[in-house]
């Protein structure tokens, strides 16, 4: 099993690692028992619905950490709205990482789910808060 250079680069220099204390949405997916858990924090502009900040914390293997880093980078670099962000799939993550070993595909799925879960959380909170 071999990781691409891109995966290693993101693993060693993860982008957007950390927490957002006053996040507008937080997603928590995976299970440490299965070896991967991701927490994704987003800060959303209420008017434009642009994701203005995104951060992650991940328990997991190299692919899980690199996927988290990549998915947050994709969002942040492009200044995406939550609608655009919801279009991001694990395939995008894999492509941008120059591929993942077959047994590691699920890590990119987790990144997709983590992002979606954070956005859902944001929406739920928004609804609640009126």
């Amino acid at each position, binding site marked *: *099993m071999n*990781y691409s250079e891109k995966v*290693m680069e993101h*693993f*060693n220099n*993860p982008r957007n*690692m950390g927490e957002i204390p006053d996040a507008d949405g937080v997603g*928590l997916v995976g*299970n*440490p*028992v*299965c*070896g*991967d*858990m*991701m*927490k994704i924090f987003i800060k959303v502009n209420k008017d434009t619905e642009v994701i203005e900040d995104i951060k992650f*914390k*991940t*328990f*997991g*293997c*190299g*692919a*899980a*950490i690199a996927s988290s880093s990549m998915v947050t980078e994709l969002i942040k670099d492009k200044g995406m709205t939550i609608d655009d962000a919801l279009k991001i799939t694990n395939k995008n993550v894999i492509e941008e990482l120059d591929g993942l070993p077959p*047994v*590691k595909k699920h890590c990119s799925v987790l990144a997709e789910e983590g992002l979606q879960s954070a956005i859902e959380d944001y929406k739920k909170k928004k609804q609640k808060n009126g």
Partner: protein
Amino acid sequence: MSKRIYLDHSSTTYILDEVYDEMIKYLKTFFGNPSSFHSFGREVRKTVEESRERVADVISAEPREIYFTGGGTEADNTAIKGIAYANQSKGNHIITSKIEHHAVLHTCEYLEKKGFRITYLPVDKYGTIDIDALRDTITDKTILISIMHVNNEVGTIQPIEEIGKIAREHNIYFHTDAIQSFGKLPIDVNKMNIDLLSASSHKIYGPKGSGALYIRKGVRIEPLIHGGHHEMNKRAGTENVPGIIGFGKASEIAKKDMENNAYKGIGELRDYLQKGITEKIADVFVNGHPEKRIPVILNVCFKYIEGESIILKLDGKGIAASSGSACTSGDLEPSHVLFAMGVDTALAQGTVRFSLGKKNTKEEMDEVLSVLPGLIENLREMSPFSAEFEFPREAGPRVKHKH
């Protein structure tokens, strides 16, 4: 790359120079088929038989009780399937443990499909099998007990002399997977009442693709590989001559090393590393028996982070170790050994095995100890878990643990 530090000797070792020198003669000059009748064959046959003596010597067996195989896994398969099929008329029950290597576990699971009943003995928190459970589980249909000598993940040494005694009392064959202990711990197949024993060359500074099965004389097995008359009709196929020669030489050296107490020094290094890690890093748990543990293995759980990522970080620093995490192996669950020992599964995902060898130095341990704390901290910073955000409790009874 010359400054890399290798701490994965329980996975495989390099080949010693003396082993190499002897082997390459049989790659280049003496290439004959040992089954051949002419001079090219005879000159090779002689050395193959010398190697058999050298391997036999390590465990106080007779040379004709040693059968060369293509590795440790093949030896395990030959022993277990061989005894099972040869004794089907006597019974269909086999006793093994939950912490065996996959070469034993998957073979046993396969035999379950073929109508055998397998008991997987539990272990305590140190990874020692439960001798009373062993006694209780024996029936008049039990034909084989297969318990490893030393566990390859945590290093715990099993009470095989006791097990051998019980097996002998009940007239049950006893096989031990001694792949981690052969040439490292003293073994006497007669004193220990061992009927079959698996060994592998590449764990003792010999070449890969070469192993041996000891079969006590008089014990019948059904061969795994059929064909020509090689290995006294117990293992067909042209012999891996350089592999056998290398294994023989490695065995000879291993025996001398044991006599010279070479593993005492390695054990001290291991303890030094263990002490350093547990002192310098918080939330670290050492697995395996505190004393009855082979001196080369140090298995540690680093809480809140995952094993593969640790291995990758270490690898980036030129340090090679292995992980008991699920991710590395492509399975979904982590080590069946740690699970059987009752280690919390989330914690078990953060396991690293350091396994030492003959040439490791204190300087190398110091290098590891200087690098490891920062690297663990770095990963822990990335982790959502911490003393404040603890692992979730494992919910309810788990599904059957796939080995």
